[in-house]
């Protein structure tokens, strides 16, 4: 009888150990696995949709090859200070103004580049947004350019207008027209000659490589948002041809 009496408290103790030590953690684990299963199930269901979206986007990009070409030139992958010099020089000569000076600032030194580096977006997995998890988004870098030109008012105005509409992404930060400073020894007394200054930020962004459609928000939809492209392509009226690699080679580079 006394042994029987001992079995009961031991059974209760065993029950408590089982519930606290094994059943409760397993219930927690079950909740976790159920959430994982639901996410994976959504991913698996979305795979077909993603494959469809990839096909649709691929076909769309082929049909929009002009837009693709335009965007790659307008918003280039690498810092193209040489091209910017060429564009500004080309537009200056087209407008009848003389380039006085050009000044370039290092990329990433401006406040725009600094603020752009913290851009984050919601992470997706197989088209399923993962709540609370943020991914770093590819962000553009910026270099700043200032050009000072000299010429008559109409020519400077024309130059500014052409520069504003060039086929290279930029943000106009400053422009001015001032009466040119008279030099004491200068015989050129043409008061109509003015100095025009134009400063802009030029964005560029390296191409993101080894992308996975499962984790990129782009593939959650089967089309591109082309509104920005339409606005920009209407805005751009100065299509300056790309600068080609010149013929090079000189036996003595100093003479």
């Amino acid at each position, binding site marked *: *009888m006394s042994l*029987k*009496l001992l079995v*009961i408290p031991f*059974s209760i103790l065993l*029950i408590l150990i*089982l519930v606290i030590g094994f*059943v409760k953690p*397993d*219930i927690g684990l*079950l909740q976790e*696995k*159920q959430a*994982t*299963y639901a996410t*994976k*199930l959504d*991913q698996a269901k979305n*795979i077909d949709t*993603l*494959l469809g979206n*990839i096909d649709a*986007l691929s076909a769309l*990009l082929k049909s929009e090859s002009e837009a*693709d070409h335009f*965007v790659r030139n307008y*918003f280039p992958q690498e810092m193209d200070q040489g091209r910017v010099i060429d564009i500004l020089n080309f537009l200056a000569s087209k407008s009848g103004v003389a380039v006085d000076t050009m000044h370039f600032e290092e990329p990433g030194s401006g406040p725009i580049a600094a603020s752009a580096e913290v851009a984050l977006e919601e992470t997706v997995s*197989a088209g399923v947004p993962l709540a609370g998890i943020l991914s770093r988004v*590819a962000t553009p870098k910026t270099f700043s350019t200032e050009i000072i030109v000299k010429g008559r008012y109409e020519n400077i105005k024309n130059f500014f*207008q052409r520069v*504003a509409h060039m086929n290279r*992404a930029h*943000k*106009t*930060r*400053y*422009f*001015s027209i*001032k*009466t040119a400073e008279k030099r004491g020894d200068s015989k050129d007394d043409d008061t109509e000659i003015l100095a025009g200054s*134009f400063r802009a930020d030029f964005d560029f*962004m390296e*191409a*993101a*490589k080894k*992308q*996975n*459609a*499962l984790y*990129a928000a*782009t*593939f959650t939809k089967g089309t*591109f*948002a082309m*509104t*920005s*492209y339409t*606005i*920009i392509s209407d*805005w751009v009226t100065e299509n300056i041809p790309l600068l080609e690699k010149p013929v090079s080679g000189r036996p003595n580079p100093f003479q």
Partner: protein
Amino acid sequence: MTGVNLSQSMAAQAEKRKKHLFSASGFPITIILLILILVGWGGLRFYLYSLDKKITALDATITDSESKFQGESIDRIADFDTRVSLLGADPSELIDPETFLIKLESLIVPQVLLTSYEYDDREKVCTVSGRTDNFRYLAEQIISLKSDPFFSDVKIDAISRNTEGKIEFTLKTNF
């Protein structure tokens, strides 16, 4: 029956009930409870095991398809989409200096000669400097600029008379 201690009888009954719980029917109840918990836990383990199998199968399906989700064409599509989304087609970012200059041309009083016009996007300030013979023309110039919504906030920054006796002024407006 007289002289029976009632309180003693109640204590005895409670003791009896306690014994009853730990003895005859108490033992099977705890055993049944233990078995039920063990069965429930076993079921839970089995369910976890089947869930693991399902997750592994789904993982395999996703991994099998993964090769279709990487490559040059995927990179190109993603890159194009990112660039298009970052084109910055915000109309306020598309600044045409010609528009400002045409507006300025229409607002300058004939007796005033401009020496400088500056547009500063970072400071959000436009600065107009000029020269005139008479303060009346300067006043007219301010009124003329204020008539346009863009220059409605015109403030005088500096007025002085130069060596030639002409009035030089600088006006500023925030936008």
